[in-house]
């Protein structure tokens, strides 16, 4: 592949849920892009809008959720303008999603291989034998014995199911894989095996990966780029090294600082006082200002712009780049 154009471009995405007559702004003005062979780790606390962002891209939102504005461009196709049927055609073929609970992703009464064959035959014009052969190859690729295609989901361990899901996600040769907390339910050793597998497949198939997780340690080790979300906003976006070592948004800086580590000196960690806002009554100005140790008068009234602080490193803070966040280069 020659082009360096991003596979996925999200611009000013806003997704709202409607609860009675109330509007819940779960995602509000999120912009980022992902190129082939890159992994963007989208992280933040529960309710920050990371999963809603993923579901908006796949257009699998709950019935009361609507994309209110913005654009989602996947390989040159504007997803927000597609009909439901066109979108259905495109899922699995252009973009697939891997969910957290592998045990719930397969139908428990059908053989695993058959469920993947079904996807292949639905999307591409392959005969039964050809489809079975593809699943054989895929199983081999993800480290499962091809003969286990005839097993039922309960005969697989958690790690094996996650591998099968990845095989299914790859079945129709997509450009983008969205992994929503793909390893959260697994033990660390199995977790790393799955992450290594994802990385290997990404290189082989030139995949763009959107990796959603609440665990910044996993992001640090597995993602090229990082986006930190807070209360529906993407507050910082840049390379992993920029965001972790040269944070420019106080929230990212504080959140990273709250993670304990098994290396380095053992020190008392700081936490962020308070909790994220209720999205039905979002604070005026910067959404983080009530919890921000650097907040000034202006933060209470003006919404900060999402600006490029240094090359490819964006933040949504009035004082991005001006604060002394201690981390340093």
């Amino acid at each position, binding site marked *: 592949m020659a082009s360096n154009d991003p596979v996925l471009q999200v611009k000013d995405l806003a997704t709202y849920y409607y609860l009675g007559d109330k509007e819940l702004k779960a995602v509000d003005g999120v912009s980022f892009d992902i190129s082939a062979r890159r992994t963007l780790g989208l992280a933040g606390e529960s309710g920050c809008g990371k999963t809603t962002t993923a579901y908006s891209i796949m257009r699998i939102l709950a019935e009361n959720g609507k994309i209110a504005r913005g654009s989602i461009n996947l390989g040159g196709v504007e997803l927000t303008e597609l009909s439901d049927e066109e979108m259905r055609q495109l899922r699995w073929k252009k973009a697939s999603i891997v969910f957290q609970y592998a045990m719930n992703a397969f139908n428990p009464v059908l053989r695993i291989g058959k469920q993947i064959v079904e996807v292949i035959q639905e999307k591409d014009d392959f005969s039964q034998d050809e489809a079975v052969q593809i699943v054989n190859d895929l199983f081999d690729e993800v480290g499962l014995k091809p003969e286990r295609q005839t097993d039922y989901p309960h005969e697989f361990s958690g*790690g094996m199911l996650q591998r099968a899901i990845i095989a299914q996600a790859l079945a129709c040769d997509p450009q983008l894989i969205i992994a929503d907390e793909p390893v959260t339910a697994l*033990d660390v*050793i199995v977790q790393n095996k799955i992450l290594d597998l994802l990385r290997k497949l990404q290189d082989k198939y030139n995949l763009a990966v959107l990796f959603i997780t609440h665990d910044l340690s996993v992001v640090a080790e597995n993602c090229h780029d990082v986006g930190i979300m807070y209360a529906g906003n993407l507050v910082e976006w840049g390379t992993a090294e920029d965001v*972790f070592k040269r944070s420019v948004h106080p929230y990212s800086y504080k*959140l990273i600082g*709250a993670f304990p580590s*098994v*290396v380095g000196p053992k020190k008392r960690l700081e936490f*962020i006082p308070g909790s994220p806002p209720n999205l039905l009554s979002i604070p005026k100005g910067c959404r983080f200002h009530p919890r921000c140790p650097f907040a000034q008068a202006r933060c209470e009234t003006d919404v900060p712009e999402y600006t490029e602080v240094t090359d490819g490193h964006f933040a949504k803070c009035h004082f991005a780049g001006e604060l002394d966040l201690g981390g340093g280069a």
Partner: protein
Amino acid sequence: MASEPILRVEEVRKWFPVRSGLFSFRGGQKYVKAVDNVSFNIEKGASIAIAGESGCGKTTLARTILRLIKPSGGAAYFKDENIFEMNRLELNELRLKMQIIFQNPFEVLDPRHTVIDLVGEGLNIHKLEESDEVLHDKVISALEDVRLVPAEDFATRYTHELSGGQLQRIAIARSLILKPELIIADEPVSMLDASIRTEVMNLMTDLQKEKDLTYIFITHDLAQARYVGDYLIIMYLGRIAEMGPMEDVIQSPQHPYTKALVSNIPIPDPTIERERIMLPGETPTPIDLPPGCRFKPRCQEFGAQCKPDEPQLQEVADGHFVACWFD
């Protein structure tokens, strides 16, 4: 040893019988050996972390020690009294001194009760309340202990009005009000977001000093274990693989399993590259374990030095024990 152990666990076993088919008598009764001969001591004021992967027996061990489930063998002494031989009355007494905090505060706290009832419940059960005023004051002071202030305001709320972090603090207040000496916390922060998780772990560390508590902290996350504990026990398939002072075990693990586990813990810093030790396969169920070392099938260092019987814990450095034939 500086002080008397507050808890002595000796060869504790918890075997669950496996129910199998009609002809199971042929092979004899089989067991899931969830906890299989575990021994350790805890000194007063210590904070020990028990870590391991799902199914290693860490939670079963905690529940067995508290006699929330019936032990299959061994003994556990709380200050020289064998918990496994206590009668109902003695157990009631014991549970004032040994409290447990569970992972999911949403399941523990009854949504139909206000905070004041939830926190005071233990006092009522143990018939310790003197009068409504005294009870009220004790609840308020317990809420202040866990930094839920203004306490009067929190006291009248219901659980749905509180966040996960606040609920977990209420679960802690429920224990504290009984003035326990030992608290077993089973993954107390695993359900919480990072910042709140750190807040609760800091609170627990502070309370330990303020109230002279001893902790058993059960977790699957070694980074968490290191943050709250000063002594670490690593379990694998129902047995202790390695135990010792926290930094000794984390910085220089001796057992091949601990080495692999530590090397796989993600580090929140993208500039640190570490070599990971990968183990083949996944942790099996502890039924029909292989003879000898139970880690053998996955061990990267298995070799001629490994004897056919099960390795016992050997002291390799001061207070640092390893169950491995390798030396």
